[in-house]
């Protein structure tokens, strides 16, 4: 409620004073503003009433004089007080008994009206200062915003680096090994034509197999760094995993807009790990992986009809996922009663 008050005050300030203050500040600061505003408000009220209202009144003195004081000569009336900023409240600064005095009052009024804008500006300046200090972001809020921004940059940067690493691996070591294997294959073919080279051929075969095994390992490594099809989106990237799963896995992706690459990567690895868990421990016969958008956040639900009893053990895979997800302010909830079924929900923001 106090925060709502703060934002209401901020809107007011924006519209009336043109003072735009970034939304921030805690509730108690908004309340402090209201408390301090009281004396400032009094000053502002005083300025407005005295200068503007009475300025107008004084300016129009002759009019009133002529309208209401047209008495037959000889009648003496009490003098009328003229109110200005100087003098006590209720007493007026000086008094007017005759028409010329009315014009003097009028002149005073004009002067007050002329001064009014300046005075108002001066008093409001105090209010503005209060607004800026109390309704805007304080040092803590600024630091918080700073941290959030730098964290997002760090996460995005890390993802971009991993992608580059995967590409370097693909275009470097992997292709070199493939070329190596190719050339060994060519060599082996040439040896077939030469008699008495059985041993050499065997050695070449061993070498080719070595290259192939290395390539298979690098493939797995690269998939753990940055899966290749992720550039086309989560659906394509996970299609291969679900297709090759020994347990039938059904994948549905219903995202109106693609999340940022960093979030996509985290979502992918969560889905991959949860799928692997379900296959390994679950004893399930069906697994479903579902991506959807809920309340401006990405929701990933991996469910299986297996044994249940999944828990986040310290140092385990699920705990690791929770940490990874927490880095971007995400959440991981496990619903896995013993006996099943299991349902894990991961919520991630759409950008880091």
């Amino acid at each position: 409620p106090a925060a709502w008050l703060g934002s209401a005050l901020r809107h007011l300030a924006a519209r009336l004073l043109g003072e735009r203050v970034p939304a921030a500040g805690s509730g108690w600061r908004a309340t402090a503003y209201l408390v301090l505003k009281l004396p400032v408000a009094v000053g502002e009220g005083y300025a407005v009433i005295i200068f503007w209202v009475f300025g107008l009144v004084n300016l129009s003195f002759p009019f009133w004089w002529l309208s209401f004081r047209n008495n037959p000569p000889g009648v003496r009336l009490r003098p009328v007080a003229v109110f200005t900023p100087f003098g006590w409240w209720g007493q007026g600064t000086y008094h007017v008994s005759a028409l010329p005095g009315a014009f003097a009052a009028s002149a005073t009024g004009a002067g007050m009206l002329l001064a009014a804008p300046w005075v108002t500006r001066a008093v409001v300046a105090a209010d503005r200062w209060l607004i800026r200090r109390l309704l805007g972001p304080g040092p803590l809020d600024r630091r918080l915003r700073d941290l959030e921004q730098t964290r997002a940059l760090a996460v995005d940067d890390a993802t971009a680096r991993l992608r580059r690493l995967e590409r370097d691996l693909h275009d470097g070591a992997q292709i070199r090994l493939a070329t190596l294997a190719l050339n060994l294959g060519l060599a082996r073919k040439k040896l077939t034509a030469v008699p008495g080279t059985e041993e050499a051929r065997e050695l070449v075969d061993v070498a080719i197999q070595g290259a192939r095994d290395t390539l298979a390992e690098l493939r797995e490594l690269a998939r753990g760094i940055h899966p290749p099809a992720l550039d086309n989106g989560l659906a394509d990237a996970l299609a291969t995993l679900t297709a090759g799963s020994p347990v039938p896995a059904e994948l549905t992706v219903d995202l109106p807009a693609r999340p940022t690459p960093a979030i996509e990567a985290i979502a992918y690895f969560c889905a991959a790990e949860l799928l692997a868990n379900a296959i390994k421990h679950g004893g399930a016969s069906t697994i479903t992986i579902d991506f959807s958008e809920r309340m401006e956040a990405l929701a990933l639900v991996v469910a299986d009809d297996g044994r249940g009893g999944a828990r986040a053990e310290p140092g385990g895979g699920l705990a690791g996922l929770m940490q990874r997800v927490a880095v971007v302010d995400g959440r991981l909830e496990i619903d896995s009663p013993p006996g099943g079924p299991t349902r894990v929900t991961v919520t991630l923001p759409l950008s880091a």
Partner: protein
Amino acid sequence: MIAEDAALFRAGLTRLLEDDGHEVCAAVGDGEALLAAVASTGPDVVIADIRMPPGYTDEGLRAALELRRARPETGVLMLSQYIETRYAASLLNGSPAGVGYLLKDRVADTDEFTDAVRRVAAGGTALDREVVGHLLTAGRRSGSLGELTPRERDVLAAMAEGRSNAGIATALVLTPGTVEKHIASIFGKLRLPASETDNRRVLAVLRYLESA
């Protein structure tokens, strides 16, 4: 013709193919050059890397799909460091005729590779064992392949890869007669319609595995 951005690998491929008696009419390094070269040289088969410049995602694949649309008589054999199910699906897209998808490592087995190139050039199919493997895992888990003996499963996989009977015989070291017997048994157990051409056969097998 060949489209591959890594120069040394490209050179190796060229050599391999030329040694086998083929003519490499063009060797390019990106998707656009691929389409241009095909237009000007009209090859029987295009061997292309899926991932190429400028974006290094799936330029080669997109060029290949474009090619399939524009010149369906040209065989397309895709090479990649990875097997991605979605790529295989979009390549096959209903017809396995003149389509291939192999891992780059397969190239080391020169005889198999040249056999695959010939098959694709002739309008047949050449799918990597890994692609087929995924489909077989699916079949295994659903139990629909439970009736087959392990040998029959090997033959089934070889059929899905697009091999001819002779090819299966060589790959699995069997006599052609044994191969035919296995195939008949498989078709009977899975209740697949007997098909005359290899392509139809591949299609039937793939459809069966996919729906499993």
